[in-house]
């Protein structure tokens, strides 16, 4: 009796493991990825409004507790503001949030590198949904003209690339993610690749010849090499530190993202497809 129960238990687990492995294979296989992607797309279309509904209910509660926990710092900040701006404080406090949103939207409209490319402005609705990836979710998807592979810009430079597109939402891989690689150009026609090293580590610029002349703060732009994944001229990162270890075949360069990844409220998705 106990043996048959143990056998049944083992069989159940084996079936579930095989099923899981089959799903993973379907997802990672280029030809069958559309199956899992389709399932995820349908699930996200159902899930997104439900999630928004829950957020609408719990947000006021969260805001209440956030205000309560930050009461001390808010009070001292308010005193400083009262000393410096007096009567204007109340008016600015009321309009601050709207002004900030407006400034971000205005800045998006004047980014020099967008040139004549069409863009879709989107709002970030979710950040870092997994502990293992640096991704954000936007409130625009296929129905709004956002597709997989499109670059995402804002807050001063390149933010990332769309990796999943659903009906009305899309997932963007940030340039700090470990999977992100961006071909860049800088200085006198020099090229390299800016590699993400995960959200908690500095990005690096690789494939740069040893002893290349650089300076701190030098900006690296997306390159215009054939079949590049991004349109040319988008600011990607600026040099933070550089040196060439003895005997190394390339210069060791640490870079910071040009885009302020702490300000991702509004972003532009560039409707750009790499030339074939």
């Amino acid at each position: 009796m106990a043996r048959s129960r143990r056998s049944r238990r083992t069989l159940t687990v084996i079936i579930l493991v095989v099923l899981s492995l089959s799903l993973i294979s379907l997802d990672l296989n280029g030809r069958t990825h559309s199956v899992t992607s389709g399932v995820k797309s349908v699930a996200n279309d159902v899930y997104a409004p439900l999630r928004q509904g829950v957020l609408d209910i719990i947000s006021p509660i969260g805001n209440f507790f956030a205000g309560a926990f930050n009461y001390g710092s808010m009070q001292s900040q308010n005193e400083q503001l009262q000393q410096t701006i007096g009567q204007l404080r109340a008016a600015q406090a009321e309009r601050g949030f709207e002004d900030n949103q407006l400034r971000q939207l205005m800045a998006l409209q004047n980014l020099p590198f967008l040139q004549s490319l069409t863009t879709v402005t989107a709002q970030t609705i979710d950040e870092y949904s997994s502990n293992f990836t640096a991704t954000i979710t936007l409130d625009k998807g296929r129905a709004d003209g956002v597709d997989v592979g499109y670059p995402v810009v804002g807050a001063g430079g390149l933010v990332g690339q769309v990796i999943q597109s659903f009906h009305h939402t899309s997932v963007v891989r940030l340039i700090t993610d470990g999977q992100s690689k961006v071909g860049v150009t800088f200085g006198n026609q020099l090229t390299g690749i800016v590699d993400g090293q995960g959200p908690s580590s500095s990005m690096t610029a690789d494939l740069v010849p040893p002893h290349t002349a650089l300076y701190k703060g030098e900006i690296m732009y997306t390159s215009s090499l054939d079949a590049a994944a991004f349109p040319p001229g988008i600011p990607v990162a600026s040099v933070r530190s550089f040196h060439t270890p003895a005997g190394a075949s390339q210069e060791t360069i640490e870079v910071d993202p040009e885009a302020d990844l702490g300000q991702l409220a509004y972003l532009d998705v560039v409707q750009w497809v790499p030339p074939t």
Partner: protein
Amino acid sequence: MTGRSMVRVALVIFVAVMVQQTVMIALRIGGAHPDLLWLLPITAALLDGPETGAIVGFWAGLAFDLVLPTPFGLSALVGCLLGFVTGSLTAAVDPRAAWLKPVAALAGSVAADMLFAVLGAILGQQQMVQIDFLAVCLVVGVSSIVLVLPVNRLMRWALAGENNRRSLVSADAGSRAW
């Protein structure tokens, strides 16, 4: 599991996904947030053994896979293995032991996160091991200890009526110890 239990478990999984994606991801400490997913197979395994733990882990993982950017099926695989191993390792332990749930939650969550990252890297998602493991393990481990009691209560409700180990304990004793 009976049909009624399956519906209840599905409801608990749905609630867990919603809470995870609305409340938990907002609680970021050191770049990491609590993870409710692993607590579902752990509590199911503690209440009803390795088979139920594996089944709940598989379906919970699949539900989370629908909304996560990681490979589809990976959470289901790890959840299934976690439920089975937790149930097998704790089969001989007195389910009334006060230390059982916190220890299982801490060890299980941290082990599951490690396995999840390593399997992801093996499957070509190198970024999954390029994270601050210490921060992730600390946040997920400590939060799991705190959250295991309410999740266990939900799972007990979902599995009520099952011929599980916990049901051998009197209802009064059970309610005192969650």
